[in-house]
């Protein structure tokens, strides 16, 4: 029987009395899985992670992590989890090794154990040869790997990763994915991660919750979510500014039509066969198709389906924005 290692019920966080960052968020995470929160910046991902990692107190609702209440037994939760925050939080003025030892001390791990473990973790994330270099000389990918190592120093049962590849280039991002998979296999723990990269959620997560405006819109495995779309998607634009949704809907095998700005998103079965038919029938009615594309379902389509738009770029607050900028600046520094 699989246990729920994280249970959240109606978690709500309201900032300053009006800014609702998380709105009745409820979900469960099974032991041993990688669970992802997918959503744009400002959707409430970090707020939720901060509540689960006991940094923020929920305004309403409750949650348990490893069986402990996140408010009443916060210190028990803190002992059992590891956190890799969105920002680079390692101390730039210290070396990689010193940073890991500092983390170990914060968990009260005795020096004999922490020394051994630090060496082992540095080896795991391939930073052994840089261990005595100051972190300010590290590249973004190296910093992120060091953060991963720090998050693992107390052998957590659950590791929280907040945007683990934010600001990294594609190559480094893929390599971080490899490390995350490796760590999971090595230590067999549960991972809770947030991301706004769809590919990332697709590549790593066993289950994904799509979140926007503080609300969970849907939860499921990437495969389930994709197949829930029920087919392929054709997007097309026409040369006229009039609504032809109802006309397209009448074409055979068309399941659903949505008009998003000047584009029509048409959900169909067997897109390859239907696309020519649509063009044909539109032309017969004097409407010229200016653009058409066929998309096989991906998480991006799932995302669009539930939120009605692409990833928006908006920040949570000035503070978050600043932190984000600092993170990006450091990430880009090689």
């Amino acid at each position, binding site marked *: 029987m699989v246990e729920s290692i994280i249970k959240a019920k109606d978690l709500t966080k309201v*900032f300053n009395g009006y800014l609702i960052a998380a709105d009745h968020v409820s979900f469960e995470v099974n032991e041993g899985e990688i669970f992802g929160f997918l959503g744009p910046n400002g959707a409430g991902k970090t707020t939720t992670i*901060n509540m689960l*990692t*006991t*940094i*923020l*107190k929920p305004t309403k609702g409750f949650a348990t992590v490893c069986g402990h209440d996140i408010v009443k037994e916060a*210190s028990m939760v*803190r*002992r*059992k*989890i590891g*956190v890799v*925050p*969105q*920002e*680079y*939080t390692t*101390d730039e*003025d*210290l070396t990689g090794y*010193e940073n890991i*030892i*500092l*983390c170990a*001390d*914060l*968990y*009260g*791990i*005795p020096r004999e*154990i922490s020394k051994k473990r630090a060496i082992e973790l540095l080896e795991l994330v391939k930073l052994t040869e840089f261990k005595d270099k100051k972190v300010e000389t590290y590249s973004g990918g190296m910093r992120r790997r060091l953060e991963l190592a*720090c998050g693992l120093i*107390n*052998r957590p049962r659950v590791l*929280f990763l907040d945007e683990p590849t934010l600001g990294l280039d594609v190559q480094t991002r893929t390599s971080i994915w490899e490390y995350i998979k490796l760590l999971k296999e090595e230590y067999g723990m549960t991972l809770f991660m947030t991301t706004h990269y769809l590919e990332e959620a697709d590549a790593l997560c066993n289950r994904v919750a799509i979140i926007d405006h503080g609300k969970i819109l849907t939860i499921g495995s990437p495969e389930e979510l994709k197949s829930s779309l029920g087919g392929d998607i054709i997007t097309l634009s026409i040369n006229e500014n009039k609504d032809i949704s109802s006309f397209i809907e009448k074409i055979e095998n068309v399941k659903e039509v949505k008009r998003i700005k000047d584009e029509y998103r048409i959900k169909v079965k067997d897109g390859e066969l239907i696309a020519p038919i649509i063009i044909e029938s539109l032309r017969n009615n004097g409407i010229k198709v200016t653009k058409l594309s066929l998309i096989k379902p991906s998480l991006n389509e799932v995302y669009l389906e539930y939120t009605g738009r692409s990833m928006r770029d908006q920040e949570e607050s000035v*503070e978050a924005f*600043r*932190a984000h900028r*600092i993170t990006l600046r450091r990430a880009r520094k090689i």
Partner: protein
Amino acid sequence: MKEEISRNPLHGLWALTHRELKKWYKEPIVFLVSIIQPIFWMGLFGKAMNINAIIANNLPPNIPRWLAEQIIKQTFGTSDYFSYMAIGMLSFVTLFTTMFSGMSIIWDRRLGFLDKVLSTPVARSVIIFSKIFSATIRSLVQASIILIFAILLGLKFGPNFTPISLLGAYIILFMLCIGLSSLFLMLAIRSTRWEHQMAIVNLLNLPLMFTSNALFPTTTMPEWLRAISNINPITYATDAIRQLLIFETLNANQLMLDFIYMSIFSTIVALISIILSWKYLSK
């Protein structure tokens, strides 16, 4: 697996304190500047502002020299203004080091380090304690350097000076450090902008300095200024150290009052900062 984790409520204190100190002593430039700066003050201010020489060299011919010396002694409690001022410098350097203690917590908040620490089992009060202690250790080291240089530049100990007086002086300095660094940390605990903290520090440092007896005796101050000076902890700390180290006559009652005032001040301010840390470190 979990048994290895410490149950000591103060675990992590030294790790966090040491982290702050490393930023100081491992940076040769920062370290050197922080050492040289008090020496500069001491040498420049202490020797330029030479009240003894000012009076001695400008004495009208009909006034005997011993009278002038007597006036200085009456005013400053010692016939050597440099010694008087050097002790004031100890408080001065403590104030200037501790007032930036709030800065590091703002940086930790902005860079996310604070969030990480908050997600570990470290007690909230330990986070504040570590900042207080690192500022205290730094200040005490700097004050010691000041004291050594003051002696080299001619500080004259009072007739009542014993090694125990030195210990007493350090206890007073320790309490002043704890009190002042808690005070400035308290002001920074919720802040996310170092600009605000800079403004607060700039606003407070001169009044704290000049409403005290660090540079001039309070007896010549106007009534209202003396009233402020009488609640300023720097006044009590400086007085106590002067009594212990340089004054020619010891006022035991005043010294007792200094110790009591400093212990109450440092305890209360430290307690408030810890209570605030429980309340405000997490949002």
